[in-house]
């Protein structure tokens, strides 16, 4: 197996707050990797560093052997990393299907000119991309609402749509930020199946943030734990479960 993503001492400060402090971990190709920690631990900020939303204050992030820290978001997407958002950021006025087609932006082959002139090539491409998007919707089981405005979807479906949209960019690394938040147990089980299928069938590497321990422990093969921006543990679920530092971090939060 080869390393796909490597964080080394990644750090970012917002004014006086060090949101992520010297975090290092490696992802191997085909991993199903969990990122957990109490609220405000810096998990989402890690995603933001990896996807170029913020530039790290120091440290390095290497993707497929290439340093990517400070690269603009869209470039990073074109390298093959795509994500979902914790506070759902769909394109509300667009239909479910259209949301997914946006994800195919990087695969446009025809130029803008042919679209403006409505040439057969652009029409055909549009048809192809829509068909592809529809297939992805089937994966996340949203094909029946393909033409609904995405803003009108219930919460759980919006989360799944986020995943389908990210899949449309055909990433090699998929980052999911709390994909199960707000779902009931049944939906969570379905989601776990989908995520596993994405890894196995579509051969993606998956890094996911989740608060639901049962979900993470059942799904992920390796887990890294953050607390107050710092990495406090790393390892397989069983080791994490019994790690005193982790228990303290979570209990400390509960008190």
């Amino acid at each position: 197996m080869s390393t796909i993503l490597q964080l080394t001492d990644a750090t970012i400060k917002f004014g006086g707050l060090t949101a992520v402090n010297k975090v290092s971990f490696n992802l191997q190709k085909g991993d199903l990797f969990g990122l957990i920690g109490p609220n405000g631990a810096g998990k989402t900020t890690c995603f933001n560093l990896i996807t170029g939303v913020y530039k790290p204050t120091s440290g390095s992030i290497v993707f497929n052997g290439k340093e990517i820290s400070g690269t603009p978001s869209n470039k990073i997407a074109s390298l093959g990393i795509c994500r979902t958002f914790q506070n759902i950021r769909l394109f509300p006025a667009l239909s479910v299907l259209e949301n997914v087609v946006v994800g195919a932006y990087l695969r446009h082959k025809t130029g803008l000119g042919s679209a403006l002139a409505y040439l057969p090539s652009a029409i055909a491409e549009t048809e192809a991309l829509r068909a592809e998007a529809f297939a992805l919707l089937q994966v996340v089981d949203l094909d029946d609402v393909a033409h609904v405005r995405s803003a009108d979807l219930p919460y759980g479906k919006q989360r799944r749509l986020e995943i389908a949209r990210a899949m449309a960019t055909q990433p090699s690394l998929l980052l999911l930020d709390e994909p199960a938040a707000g779902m009931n147990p049944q939906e969570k089980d379905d989601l776990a199946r989908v995520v596993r299928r994405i890894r196995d069938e579509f051969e993606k590497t998956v890094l996911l943030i989740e608060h639901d321990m049962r979900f993470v422990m059942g799904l992920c093969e390796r887990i890294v734990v953050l607390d107050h921006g710092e990495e406090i543990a790393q390892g397989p679920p069983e080791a994490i479960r019994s790690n005193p530092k982790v228990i303290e971090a979570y209990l400390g939060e509960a008190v």
Partner: protein
Amino acid sequence: MFYLKRFGWVILAILLCVGFESVVTSGKNFDYVYRMCVLAGLYVTLAVSLNLINGITGQFSIGHAAFYQVGAYITGFFAATGYKGFASNSLVQQLSHIGVNATWTVQGLWLVMMVLAGAAGAAVAGFVVGLPSLRLKGDYLAIVTLGFGEIIRIVCQNQPALGGAYGMKIEPRINSMWFVWLLAILCIAVCRNLLKTAHGLPFLAVREDEVASSAMGVDVTKVKVTAFVIGAAFAGAAGALLGHFEGFVSPPMFKMEVSFMVLTMVVLGGTGSITGSTVGALLLFGIPEWLRQIEDSHHNPILVSAGSVLGFAIMLVAAVAYVRHLIHHFHGEKKAKTQRIVGTFAAALVAQFFLGMLLNLVPALRDKSWPYADLRWAIFAVTLIVLMLLRPQGMFAHHEFSVARFFKRPKEAAA
């Protein structure tokens, strides 16, 4: 086969435009109507092109008149320096034997060149104005686009080579109504094509959420600048046609108010809707012009007394307040709601008539009166406010007119 079909559509569009022009020119004293039709066509182009920037891509630009001006001034400059040379050019002379008549062909060729030049110049301006949109958002961007517009206007105003404050004459004057409408149709077609293909989605996505777009790989910078460039190019092309139609250009033709007017057309129609922009342009251009026309059978302007105006204003405020109440708090059937709204306005219309008569009993209110023409901008403003109060999403919201919708069963459409 495809190209044959496309060619057919183009011919049809041209025939439509030429047909429209000949219908207009067949009337008696058509000068005024002709002029209005030309200006309306130009406004449609302006509104639809601004809609691309503002409504579709969501970049808050309120200086569209600047691009219009760039197009017009480029034409003015070339017409002053190059038209004579162009007309006497031997190649052009030879070509001129092809068309219906020589002047027609020469002027037509020239006009096409000027439209392209105006579009190119304005596209460059659009590129320059689009660049700040990379760093600025919302209101900040708005004020910068407004600023660019003003700077361009004031600079032109102080360039003796561009005629200074008086502007410059553009020879020859060309009556180009069908061409104006062809441009409008082209502009509409281009925007519609964009939205019909996958290429249009990134534009909408940038409007909806820049961070998410960029995470999906959309080159937000490129999309925004492209929208500015295309939108500006159409405005520039319209400017070129305006210049040759009016026979002169001057800085006041491109005041801030023109930009506001175009912006208003877009919002009133429903931001993002091409149909909306078109209808908005026709309506907002038409209302003031129509009000200017109101006169009795002896061609004297009809006067409105202050009492009537006051009565109308009072009833309007009351009706709008009540209709807003209905819109937000009436939970009955949709049909009943519509009936009530229409009923309210009808009642208010009748009531304002009597209230006006009553108020006119007061001598001070009876004796002060104005022709409709003087009231037109005030009425325009009131229309704007009322429409926004009652339907802030614009007339068409984000919908498009489509023939298919007409044939849909009501049930289906509701589903």
